[in-house]
C-alpha cells in the first residue's frame, strides 16, 4: 500500500512526509524543534498554547504548526524575530494568568513552561500578574490538582478521554476563569469514573497535577500517550 506524500520546505530544507501530516510533526521528523506546551504526540491537536505559531510564505497570517496540515510547495519558517517576539509574549501571558511561582512549585526544574521561559529569554513579565486563588483539590488518595498552576493546555483532559477512555476530566467556565474539573465538578475523591491511572499527572507540562509524595522527576512521563497508541496500533495489525 503506497501512501500519498507531500513535499514542502521547512526553514529552507526540503522535506517529504505523508499527506495529512502536521507542520509540527513534519518539522520534528526532520530535526527541527518548534516549541509547544499543549501538543503531545499520541493525542489530538488542540492548538491552544499558540507557541508553535509559524510563518508560511505568501501569507501575512501566523499558523499553529500543530493544527496545520502540510501541503505541496508550502514554505514554512519556524524561526524568526517576529515569531520569537510572539512566543515570548505567549509565555508571558501564561505566566501572568495564574500564580506561577517556580521557587515554591513542585515542578521546579521539571517544568516545560519554566524551561521554555528560560530558553526564550523571558526575563520578566510585562503584564500585571493575576494572583489567583483557585481551589486546590487534594482529596484523592495520591493525585493533587493545583489549578493556580494550570496553563489550560488540556493535555490531562485529552489523555483521560482519548487514551484512558474514561473522560473524568473536563473544563468548566471560559477564558481566564476556565478550570479543569472532575466529573460534574465534584471533588476528585468522589469521582466514580476516575481509574487513578495517573496519566494526567504524567503528561502535565507544569506542576498543576502531580502525585503526592513522589518527585516529579519520577512521575513525569509525557511520552505515555505516544507509547500506548503505538502499542495499540501494533496489536491491531497482528
Amino acid at each position, binding site marked *: 500500500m503506497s501512501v500519498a506524500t507531500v513535499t514542502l520546505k521547512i526553514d529552507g530544507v526540503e522535506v517529504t512526509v505523508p499527506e495529512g501530516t502536521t507542520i509540527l510533526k513534519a518539522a520534528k521528523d526532520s530535526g527541527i524543534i518548534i516549541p509547544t506546551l499543549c501538543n503531545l504526540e499520541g493525542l489530538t491537536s488542540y492548538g491552544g498554547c499558540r507557541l508553535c505559531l509559524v510563518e508560511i510564505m505568501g501569507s501575512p497570517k501566523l499558523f499553529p504548526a500543530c493544527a496545520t496540515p502540510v501541503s505541496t510547495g508550502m514554505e514554512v519558517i519556524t524561526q524568526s524575530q517576529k515569531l520569537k517576539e510572539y512566543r515570548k509574549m505567549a509565555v508571558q501571558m501564561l*505566566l501572568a494568568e495564574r*500564580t506561577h*511561582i*517556580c*521557587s*515554591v*512549585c513542585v515542578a*521546579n*526544574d521539571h517544568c516545560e513552561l*519554566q524551561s521554555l*521561559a*528560560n*530558553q*526564550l*529569554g523571558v*526575563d*520578566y*513579565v510585562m503584564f*500585571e*500578574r493575576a*494572583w*489567583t*486563588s483557585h481551589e486546590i483539590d487534594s482529596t484523592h488518595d495520591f493525585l493533587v490538582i493545583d489549578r*493556580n498552576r494550570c496553563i489550560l493546555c488540556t493535555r490531562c483532559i485529552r489523555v483521560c478521554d482519548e487514551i484512558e477512555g474514561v473522560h473524568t476530566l473536563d473544563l468548566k467556565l471560559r477564558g481566564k476563569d476556565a478550570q479543569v474539573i472532575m466529573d460534574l465538578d465534584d471533588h476528585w475523591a468522589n469521582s466514580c469514573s476516575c481509574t487513578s491511572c495517573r496519566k494526567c499527572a504524567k503528561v502535565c507540562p507544569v506542576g498543576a497535577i502531580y502525585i503526592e509524595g513522589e518527585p516529579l522527576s519520577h512521575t513525569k512521563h509525557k511520552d505515555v500517550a505516544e507509547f500506548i497508541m503505538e502499542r495499540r496500533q501494533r496489536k491491531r495489525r497482528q
Partner: protein
Amino acid sequence: MKKTRLATIWLSGCSGCHMSFLDQDELLIDLAKLVQLVYSPIADIKVFPENVDVTLVEGAVANEEQLNMLRQARARTKILISLGDCAVTGNVTALRNAWNNSDQAVLGRAFVENANVNQQIPTDVPRLLKKVHPLHEVVKIDYFIPGCPPSAGVINYVLTELLSGRTPNMEGRSKYG
C-alpha cells in the same frame, strides 16, 4: 581609571540574592578592581548616595519605606537591575496578593489571630502596601536577572558585560525558581 559606582539594596527578600552575589567568591576580587561599593547591606553606609552607576535591587516592594527607597535609588542610578525572582516577579513575597486587603490579612493573622498577648497590629513600623509589587511595576528597570536565587555565575556575567560596555543577553542563561 575611574571606578564604576556600584550599589546593592535589599527590599522584601530573604537575602539569598545577596548571598549569591557574595558567592562569586574569587571573582569578587576582580570585580573590586573595577567597582566601588557605595551602598549595600554588606557595607555600613546610611544614605543612598548620588551619582550611582549600577544598582542591584533584591526583593519586591512590600511597604512604603521600600517604595521610597526604590524611587530614590532610581533617581540616583544610571542602570537599575532587578536581582532575583522577588524583584522580577514578586515571588514568595507576593503570594499574599491572592487575598483581598492582603496587608491587613497578613498583619491580622500574625499579630492578632496568632498572638496570645497584646493582640494589636503594630503602627510603629513602615506601613505595608495593599499589594506586593515587582520592581518594574513601580519604576523603570534596565535589566532583569531572574532566579531564586540567581546563580553567582549569572550575576557575574551581567556585571561583567555591563562593565565592559556590552548588553547582557539572558537567553538560555537565567532561570526562574
